[in-house]
Structure formats: C-alpha cells, structure tokens
C-alpha cells in the first residue's frame, strides 16, 4: 500500500464511500419492516409528546387516544416556567463542560496509550478498562464523601468532575484504536519533516481521529445530559438542578396533572433528540470507525 502520501487522503476519502446519496427505492417489504421497527421505537416517544397536548380527563377517559381537542396550555406553561429553563441551562452547562473535559483528558491519555511505548502502558489501559466494571450507582457513597471533602456539594462542578472521571473508560476504549490506526508512516514522514510528536498530535492525529473524537463527545454529552443518580445526591438546591432531577421533581409536584408531567418530560428530552439528530451522521460514522478500526 502506498505509504505517507496516500495515508491521509485515503482516510479522508473514506466518508465518500459511506455517503449514501442512495440510488434506488428498496423492496416494499423492507420498508414495511422498517416501518414496524420505527413505530415501535418512536411510538412511546410520540405518546409522551402527544400526551402533553391533552387534558387529564382526556387521558383518564381514553388512555391511548389522540388529543381531542389539542390543548397547548401544558406546553406553554412549562416553556414559561423559570424552573424549566434554569434546569435546562444547568444541564447544558454541565453537559458542555463534561464533554470538553472528557474529550481533552481522554484524547491526551489515548494518544499516549496509542502511540508511545512505555512500560506501564498495558497496565494503564487495563486500569481504564476496569473502570467500566464500577458504575456510578455502585460508587455513590464513597464518591459522595470525596465530593464533600473537595467542597463541591451542591455545585455544578461536583457533578462535572465525577462525570468526567466516569466517562474516561469508554472514551479511552473507543479512542485508542482510532489513534492507533493512524499509520506509523505518516508519523515518520512528519518526523522527517521536523514535527515533534506533540506537534503531530495537534496537527495531524486529532484531525485524523476526528470521527472517533466526535463519537466520544456525543456519547459524553448524552450521558451527562441523562445522568440522574449523581445529581440526585450531590445537588440540594433547586437552582442547581439538572433536567432529569427536574423531571422527577416535577412529576411528583404536579403528580395529579399527568398531562403537564408528560409535557415537561417531552420538552426535557427534546434537547438530547435535537442534538442527536444534528450529529447522527457523526455518531454512526464514529461507531463505524470504532468497529472497523
């Protein structure tokens, strides 16, 4: 295979093969099955969204029916409430900072693991892999005490830093092969040109591993957005609440108002859905890359 010169371009050429400006309509049978699958996947979501457009009596009388008439007050009420937006912004801040932290730290460590040789390399990798065995819910008590000792209780940082830590195993496991897959030839060519290893890191490795980086970023953001158990124990004041906490609190506060709860719930999942739909190409591409190498 042609080395340095075709290494980079061939990697960049990969997306062209993946691009499906597809050619033809498929067999209707396939579309039917796809339709079934999609209805099953999206059905409950639709139920939640539509439920917000109904009144409680509609829901009690006809649990599986359509809104009749369509009622907007629930959604409007939630959109007007300061609580929703403050929780939304908290979730956003936490999500963004977590993502940046996970990506930065993860890329740095994965690069070291992927392209340097040192004695403890295998052990370090296994260390991160072992972290997969210890989920947040299991660690919560000692973790809480550590967070408290750092003075981070009831602060967003008290959520962000543990989330970064717990996001590292998946990140390292996904990114290391990506970074490893960059041919040595490119690196050697760059070295001959006078680039340091770290220069190579910034200028070439990261751009080449971008699909993996983006996958990791998306997974980190979604994971942070949906995290429930950690904010439940670390955050005390409502001004700091994130959305999942808000959903649970709202559903108990307005428990009798099922329709309003559904409206709040569906608005809470919108950001994750929108975020995902913007980046879905990258996610699929990233997962593709992770599996293929």
């Amino acid at each position, binding site marked *: 295979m042609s080395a340095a010169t075709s290494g980079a371009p061939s990697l960049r050429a990969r997306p062209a093969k993946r691009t499906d400006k597809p050619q033809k309509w498929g067999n209707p049978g396939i579309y039917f099955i796809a339709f079934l699958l999609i209805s099953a996947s999206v059905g*409950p979501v639709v139920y939640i969204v539509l439920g917000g457009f109904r009144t409680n009596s509609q829901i009690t009388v006809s649990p599986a029916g359509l809104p009749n008439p369509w009622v907007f007050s629930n959604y409007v009420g939630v959109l007007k409430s300061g609580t929703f937006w403050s929780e939304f912004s908290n979730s956003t801040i936490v999500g963004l900072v977590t993502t940046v932290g996970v990506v*930065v730290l993860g890329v740095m460590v994965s690069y070291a693991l992927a392209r340097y040789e040192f004695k403890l390399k295998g052990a370090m990798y296994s260390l991160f892999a072992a972290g997969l065995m210890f989920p947040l819910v299991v660690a919560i*008590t000692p973790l809480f005490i*550590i967070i408290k000792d750092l003075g981070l209780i009831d602060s967003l940082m008290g959520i962000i830093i543990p989330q970064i*830590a717990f996001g590292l195993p998946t990140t390292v496991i996904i990114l290391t092969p990506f970074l490893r897959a960059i041919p*040595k030839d490119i690196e050697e060519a760059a070295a001959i040109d006078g680039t340091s290893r770290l220069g190579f890191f910034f200028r070439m490795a990261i751009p080449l591993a971008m699909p993996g980086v983006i996958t990791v970023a998306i997974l980190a953001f979604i994971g942070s957005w949906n995290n*429930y158990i950690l904010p439940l124990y670390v955050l005390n004041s409502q001004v700091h609440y994130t959305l999942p906490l808000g959903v649970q609190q709202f559903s108990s506060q307005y428990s009798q108002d099922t329709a309003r709860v559904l409206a709040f719930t569906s608005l809470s999942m919108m950001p994750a859905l929108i975020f*995902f739909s913007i980046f879905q190409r990258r996610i699929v591409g990233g997962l*593709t890359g992770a599996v*293929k190498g």
Partner: protein
Amino acid sequence: MSETLRTAAVGRIRRGALQVGDAAHAASPTPRARKRGRGRQRLEIALLTSPAIIVFVGLVIFPVVLAAYYGFYKWQGYGPPTDWVGLGNYKIIFTDPAFQQALEHNGLIVVLSLVIQGPLAILLALLLNQKIRGRALIRVLIFVPYVISEVIVGTGFSLMLQVTGAVNDALHSIGLGFLATDWLADPNIALWTLMGIITWKYIGFAVILMLAGLQSIPDELSEAARIDGASYWQVQRHITLPLLGPTIRIWAFLSIIGALQLFDLVYIIWGQYISGTAGTSTMATYMALNGRLAGNYGYGSAVAVVMFLVSLVVALFYQRFVLRRDLRGAVTQGVN
C-alpha cells in the same frame, strides 16, 4: 481504507490490550540524543496522561478501594467505621435468598438480552443494509430510544403500562383485549416487561453497531459467493456472520456489562422497595435497598464490591476466551 490498515486496527481492537513494541522506528539517533529523547518522551507521556489519571484514580478507583474498606465493617455511615466484621457481610450476602434472586434476575437479563437482541439486531441490520433511499432517516429514528434518559423512559413506560394505561387501552381497541394484563405488578410477567423495555431502549444501538460491522464487509465477497451459486442465507451464514463476529462480540460484551449493572430503569419503574416482590430486582437494586436505604453503609459497600468482582470476573473471562479468538481467527488473515 487500505486493507492492511484496517486489518491491523481490527486486530488491535479485538485484543483490548495493547501490543508493546511493534512497528519499526526511524534511524536511531546518537546515544545522547536518544537519552534526551527518552527523557523528553517521558515528560510528554506524563503531561498527556496525568490529568486523566489523577481524576480517574481519585474519583473512580479510590471509591472502589474505599468501598472495599467499608465492606469489612458494620457501619451506619457516620463517624469512622469501628465495628469490624471481616468477611461477615459477604457471608450474609451469599446466603441471603433475596441476593440470590437478584443475581438470578441479572443472569436472566444477561442471557435474554443476548438472545433476544442479538439475532434481532443482525436481522434488522441485514435488512437495512441496502443502499435504499431513506436509509439515513431510518437509522436515525431507530436510534432515538437510546438517546432518551432512563428517567424519562421509566416515567413514560410506567404511565403507559398501568392497568388503566395506554397499552391495555390500545390492546382493547384493536380487539386484543384478552392480552391486557398487569404488566408491572404480576411477578410472572414483570421480568418480561422489563426485558421488553430494555430491548426497546437498546435495540437501536445494537442495530447501528451491526450496520457498522456489515459495512466493513466488502461486497465482492458475497458477490463472488453468489456467482458460485450460494443462496442468500448461505452467504449470510458462511460469509457475513463470521466476518461480523468481532462486532457481535464487542456488542455482546457491552450488553453483558450493562445488564449486570442495571439499576435506573428498575428503580424508576418499580420503586425502591418492591422490585424483589415483582421479580425484577437486580444486584444494584438489592444494594440500594439493603445498603443506603437501610442505613447499612458497610453492608452496602460489601454488595458494591461483590458487583464489581462479578463484572470483573465476567469481563476477564470474556476477554480471555471469547475475544482472544479474534487474534488468530479468520479475520486478520482472511480479509486481504
């Protein structure tokens, strides 16, 4: 993407650990420059790895160690632990029928997840792997459940699966009323309901992974086989499935670990106390009920350690016996 590149990378991701000392180095510099280079290299490694290591060890590894420490005590959570019981907590754990049931449920969930989601995901991926119009949209839509938080999934499904909820109502309205039942409270059904919800949430993820794996299989192979007269299913069985092997094994690994650690969904839907009664308790809910909720922090820490060890043993076993096959399997040598 070049074949050798992909092959080499595939080999690496299978192993899950790193090869040390591969690939040629450039022409060796003078000994002095090499030493300076090595020292500088160590500095770079330290700089690159230390932030992640500090954060990770401090907030993930250290709690593991702390949990192990607390697990040797009977401790109510305040002040330092003083009531040493050694392995006493562990003895209670393994003789408690509630824990045994929880472990059983975890085992069932692991097996059922693999058996239900695996073949289904592969079939669906095969179906959707055609270059048809709308493929991108389909992929997006089936991935939606994965993106939604478990709190929302739990809340939504709790409402839908009530005896007077939307699911039973829909069944009545299409004439399948005899199927309407108490999906959540009947101990005979509850676990299957849980499996249904889990499948709903994670099948999209599995399909996307399988699709990715399928896309790395060159079309020429199946075309060649077809020319030789193989039927569609023969092609799948003898070419596609084996080449999909690495993907399947990775997905299975993630699925197993996830199933062992299941907590959020069960907690949100069945609440803090009754998952055992409903037949859906897991090790994690057992830990919450007998540990934190009961104020027995020492006992709860011991359960946490048990969960960790179970996951670790399964993972090590899996890596050693299942993933290792890929190293000397057809993948690394056949595709070239």
